[in-house]
């Protein structure tokens, strides 16, 4: 299923280019983009770096030098793989950051002083593993949000706007889903769908849309009765156009906040899945889970945990900061005047 995640990455890049071009043409969005950059240059740069790393870990090809690797692992090598050459860049077992000798036994390392964050139990470089985790994290957050938001918006807005039977049906679905413990449902779904990036994202999406759907429905209910919607009806605007031009833009800030919050919540919840043993291979969650035992050793082995946690924390913080600024900017009611 590697190709699905490639398509998602491609879509995300296309969306970014599309947004860039749109912002170039539309004064409103151009202004907002500039404003966002002005307020959160650092956070945007951080997310950009993560995206770049994920991108570098997504572009893969097979050539003569990596043919053997591709045959044994079933995967083409990505740019990140090519930079680190993992099969040559390993040690026997643990080694501390920048150490010259192994952690246990004191044998000289194969690559003394080159492992910035040391190596793990199997001697793999921690920096390399951390960088590999960025792609998984972005996939979990991005792909699942891409599953959640359209479903929640479609159901929530149509339930709120049209009411009656549609509302009843959506509410029934939400109530049923909400009455099953989320974790139980997640485990059951992953057992049925199988373990894999897309499967886990779909499982997280299926269990995660209820909350936002409820918000979207409530907001639509409120907006449906708004005077400007009545005014639009009095102008002869179609229902579909009312939803598109008057309802959706007014909940856009909710979508953005939800996207950011659910993005970070999903990245974090993957660590819980990893703890339960149903997380994704190569994720930060898995690294943290493996580091649990290492923390009880003396002297403590902290670099595995540190690498994954710092990467996770930085991404979550940056995305949250961007979301916060975006909300203020996109919603003109909270936008400060005379900036």
């Amino acid at each position, binding site marked *: 299923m590697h190709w699905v995640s490639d398509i998602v990455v491609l879509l995300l890049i296309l969306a970014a280019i599309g947004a860039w071009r749109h912002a170039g043409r539309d004064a409103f969005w151009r202004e907002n983009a500039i404003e966002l950059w002005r307020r959160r240059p650092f956070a945007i740069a951080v997310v950009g770096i993560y995206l770049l790393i994920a991108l570098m870990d997504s572009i893969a090809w097979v050539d003569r030098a990596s043919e053997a690797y591709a045959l044994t692992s079933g995967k083409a090598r990505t740019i990140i793989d090519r930079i680190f050459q993992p099969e040559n860049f390993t040690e026997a077992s643990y080694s501390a950051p920048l150490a010259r000798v192994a952690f246990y036994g004191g044998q000289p390392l194969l690559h003394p002083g080159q492992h910035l964050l040391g190596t793990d139990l199997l001697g793999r470089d921690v920096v390399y593993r951390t960088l590999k985790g960025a792609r998984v994290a972005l996939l979990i957050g991005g792909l699942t949000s891409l599953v959640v938001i359209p479903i929640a918006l479609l159901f929530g807005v149509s339930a709120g706007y049209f009411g009656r039977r549609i509302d009843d049906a959506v509410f029934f679905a939400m109530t049923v889903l909400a009455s099953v413990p989320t974790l139980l449902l997640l485990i059951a779904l992953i057992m049925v769908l199988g373990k894999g990036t897309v499967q886990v994202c779909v499982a997280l999406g299926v269990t995660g849309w209820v909350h936002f759907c409820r918000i979207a429905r409530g907001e639509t209910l409120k907006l449906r009765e708004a*005077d400007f919607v009545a005014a639009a009806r009095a102008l002869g605007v179609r229902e579909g156009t009312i939803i598109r031009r008057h309802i959706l833009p007014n909940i856009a800030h909710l979508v953005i906040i939800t996207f950011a919050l659910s993005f970070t919540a999903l990245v974090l919840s993957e660590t819980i899945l990893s703890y339960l043993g149903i997380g994704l291979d190569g994720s930060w969650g898995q690294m943290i889970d493996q580091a649990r035992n290492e923390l009880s050793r003396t002297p403590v082995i902290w670099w595995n945990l540190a690498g994954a946690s710092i990467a996770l924390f930085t991404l979550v913080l940056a995305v949250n900061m961007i979301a916060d600024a975006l909300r203020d900017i996109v919603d*003109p009611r909270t936008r400060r005047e005379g900036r």
Partner: protein
Amino acid sequence: MSAPLLSVENLSISFPGDAGPVRVVDRVSLSIALGETLALVGESGSGKSMTALAIMRLVPKPGRIEPGGRVGFQGRQLLSLSVPDMRAVRGGGIGMIFQEPMTSLNPVTSVGDQVLEAIELHASLSRADARSRVIELFSLVGIPDAKRRFGAYPHQLSGGLKQRVMIAMAMAMRPRLLIADEPTTALDATIRAQILELLRDLSATTGTALLLITHDFGVVNEVADRVAVMYAGQIVEEGTRVELLGRPRHPYTQGLLRSIPKAETRGRRLDEIKGAVPAPGHWPSGCRFHPRCSNAFAPCPRVEPVRTAVSPTQAACCHLLDRSVQP
């Protein structure tokens, strides 16, 4: 007089209640000629806004227009039009402006784009043409610095300017009839005068008829050609402005006019109409005004008064005027 632009006949609107449907508008008939301004006056809850919404076929659910009523507009029966045809009438033939300019504009779209939407709905103009039409409209409704205001957001405009934008939006397709539901209630007194003057000018220059819904006789006096007074879901009196303000015939109209503060009654206690408008579903028998009427006599609680003409243009529903009713 030729065929009226708008003629409402026998219009009733009801909402489902605990004990069967409750009528909020009861057999209302009114007509507006081309270019004429009719003021529909009444207290809160008298059904005047609902009448206006029914003309646009926008009665909020679960309310419904009862069969038997007719709304004719430019020779077409609006109540039997298909949904797409009715949509073309809204905004195209009939424009509407609302009471609350503060909340009647979409807060996240620039006002220019909102008026643009109104134009693009009904006419196929190029983007640039539509845009210049918006700016033209903005200057027509007296928005200063129209070009710059195109990109402004509602929260950047004052209440008076917002109401001007609403008027521009409603007038975008040069409708033949403009329905204004208490357009000045939410505005300051000085702004109110300006908006009324604007409505009067627009009506005069474009020949647009105006259905003005208000509870303010000051507004009536300034803009109306004719006046219809509503009480408890019915029209109780109608006539020209001069007739109705000068010589009201229905005790309710008389009471309303007496309860306006005037310079010569300064210092004295203001007359008022005792009691409150009865709630829909609890309307008194006979004449609905009789419990509050100081002139009520024997037939009032029993017999519903019929419309009695007192001049070619003035009529009222009161037993006092009907010679066939014996006290």
